[in-house]
């Protein structure tokens, strides 16, 4: 599909342009909130959409990074940039440990083991003292990025977050479109065949898992800096569920899907919170059902399908 890349390119351009002007149109904190979850969803999509592994415990990586970043920045006076790196490294390490255990199983067992391990982390964060229990770590200083950019200014912080998001996005994009990514897709489609072709499937799965965990961690670490606090919600299983919802809603296995899904969900949660009150959760549930029943390929997946149909191409 050579023409699709032109469409993709236009998409990237539009996305970048929108990202650059967005803080002048919308509320920067809201945008950063959505960007953190967009990166989280993109990282999750790498695993579910491109490798076919449904993790139900991704909040563990998001939460680990957020807590580690929050802790080192607050109590050890580490600059935020290094804090984010520390958080991401911690999440990657946890991802490696979890990944080594879980890739031995598939399907529902895989999902359940990731959920169990994530719950383990949740209770660790609840019990241990540095996380502040149910009150969370509060009042993390935003500080200066590279000793120059004062991050207390929402707009400046926004561009740092946008750049970090783009970095994560590019990493995922490169991964998907590399020979490595092709092998992941082969594993998703037919694992025994990939094995018979001589690929060490477990190594590929583990690497995909670790990359996904690390980038989820990057999202969590940024989240800690943006909001200046970390609470138990960040490692709660609801958060693991939300990232599944974002990815499915936006479009599983599409490049832009998770971004669209994350923006849709965060918009609903924050912008509708003072308009519909208690109906937020009901609306989210209804959307999830609607998505599963009516447009299973998600918003972006359906849009691409429609585009191809209009041009008379066979669906890919």
């Amino acid at each position, binding site marked *: 599909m050579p023409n699709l890349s032109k469409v993709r390119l236009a998409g990237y351009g539009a996305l970048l342009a929108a990202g650059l002007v967005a803080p002048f149109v919308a509320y920067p904190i809201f945008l950063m909130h959505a960007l953190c979850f967009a990166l989280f969803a993109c990282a999750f999509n790498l695993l579910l959409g491109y490798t076919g592994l449904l993790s139900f415990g991704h909040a563990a990586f998001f939460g680990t990074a957020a807590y580690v970043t929050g802790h080192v920045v607050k109590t050890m006076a580490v600059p935020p940039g290094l804090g984010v790196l520390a958080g991401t490294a911690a999440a990657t390490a946890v991802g490696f440990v979890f990944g080594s255990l879980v890739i031995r199983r598939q399907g529902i067992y895989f999902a359940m083991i990731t959920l169990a391990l994530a719950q383990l982390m949740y209770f660790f964060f609840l019990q241990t003292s540095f996380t502040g229990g149910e009150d*969370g770590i509060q009042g993390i200083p935003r500080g200066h990025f590279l000793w120059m950019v004062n991050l207390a200014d929402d707009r400046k912080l926004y561009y740092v977050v946008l750049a970090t998001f783009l970095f994560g996005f590019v990493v995922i994009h490169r991964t998907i479109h590399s020979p490595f990514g092709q092998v992941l897709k082969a594993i998703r489609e037919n694992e025994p065949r990939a094995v018979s072709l001589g690929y060490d499937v477990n190594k590929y799965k583990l690497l995909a898992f670790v990359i996904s965990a690390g980038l989820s961690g990057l999202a969590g670490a940024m989240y800690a800096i943006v909001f200046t606090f970390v609470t138990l919600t960040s490692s709660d299983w609801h958060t693991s569920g939300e990232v599944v919802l974002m990815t499915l809603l936006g479009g599983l296995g599409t490049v832009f899907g998770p971004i669209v899904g994350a923006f849709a969900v965060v918009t609903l*949660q924050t912008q509708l919170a003072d308009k519909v009150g208690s109906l937020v959760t009901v609306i989210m549930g209804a959307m999830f059902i609607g998505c599963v029943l009516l447009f299973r390929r998600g918003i972006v997946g359906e849009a691409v399908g429609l585009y191809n149909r209009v041009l008379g191409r066979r669906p890919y």
Partner: protein
Amino acid sequence: MQSKLSILIGCGLLLANVAAGGQAKAGAGKISDGIVKVGVITDLSGLYSDLSGQGSIIAAQMAVNEFGGKVLGAPIQIVSADHQNKADIAANKARQWFDTQQVDVIVDGVNSAAGLAVSKVANEKHRIFIDSGAGSTRFTNEDCNPYTIHYAYDTYATGSVTGKAVVQHGGTTWFFITADYAFGKSLQQDTTTAINGVGGKVLGSVLAPLNAPDFSSYLLQAQGSGAKVIGLANAGGDTINSIKAASEFGINKKQTLAGLLVFITDIHALGLQVTQGMYVADGFYWDLNDATRKFGKAFMAKANKMPTMVQAAVYSSTLEYLRAVQAAGTDDADTVMRKLKEMTLNDAFVKNGKIRADGRMVHDFYLFQVKSPGESKGDWDFYKLVATVPGDQAFQPLSASRCPMIKK
């Protein structure tokens, strides 16, 4: 964009004022943006929606109605949001309210993590936040700030009031069932200090994991200890499950339960058959005096249930904030805050309440015992007053506060 929006709103209000007869003009200059906005941030859909939630919005509205909908000639408006028990959504909403919607004060703030997050935003934006829903003592200790008031209760107060007053009424030996995390442990600690202070004795304790499905083994240990009182240092679903199990085992017939964080809505949900005889510390009960009864019935007519301590405190904090605005002649946060800390607070919720330098609102606390079904004359007739504990004994003394704002 922000200034454009406020000009637009200002113009709209000016027109409205002119239409209303023009008497509003006099004070409008002292009120920023010509409107006083009260933001109610609460949990409308989760586990706290019963004790706070919609009822808090109704309570705030009642305070506004009592003021005739206007202060210093400027209209008062209430906005509300569901934080879904997520601190990020709470903080995000608070920021947006302060930055783009001219909200002057935020009330309720149930859920400690969400409340603390809002408190940081209020401090950063120099606007007032009056928390009534959350119970963490961090609001007036490590995380205190000049723009936050902790209004209704904290776990120190509920723990120490229950501990002290129960011992003084014969419950001299205790056994704790404690939620196995920081909250439960500090609740147990504060209660134990109070018990020892008045000559009571703690015979033992057991840690139960958060959201434990089955409390029978912990209750059997409590039964075996022979203690007169079983202290429940837990909250929410854990408290409800442990009370239910105690009733099933018949433990509540020989030993007395003391809930260290129980709201009247929990009693309503469990029923008197299960909860009878239990000790409960509370900062408010609708059937205390004429003023509380009047407020309770008015609230009942709107919300179809009696107000909890949290909801009554939301009413009170909104009312006292508006009184302070009126007395100060402006809605400038620093001036109003100074006024609030000078004032003596008196309304249906609080008698001679004072706001301390660390932000703690000090008021009387009560120990109640839950009536038996035979004693109760009807729905919501749940409590017998056992003791009234003066505010200065109920709350953590200022000298013990770890708040950095307090100079020692």
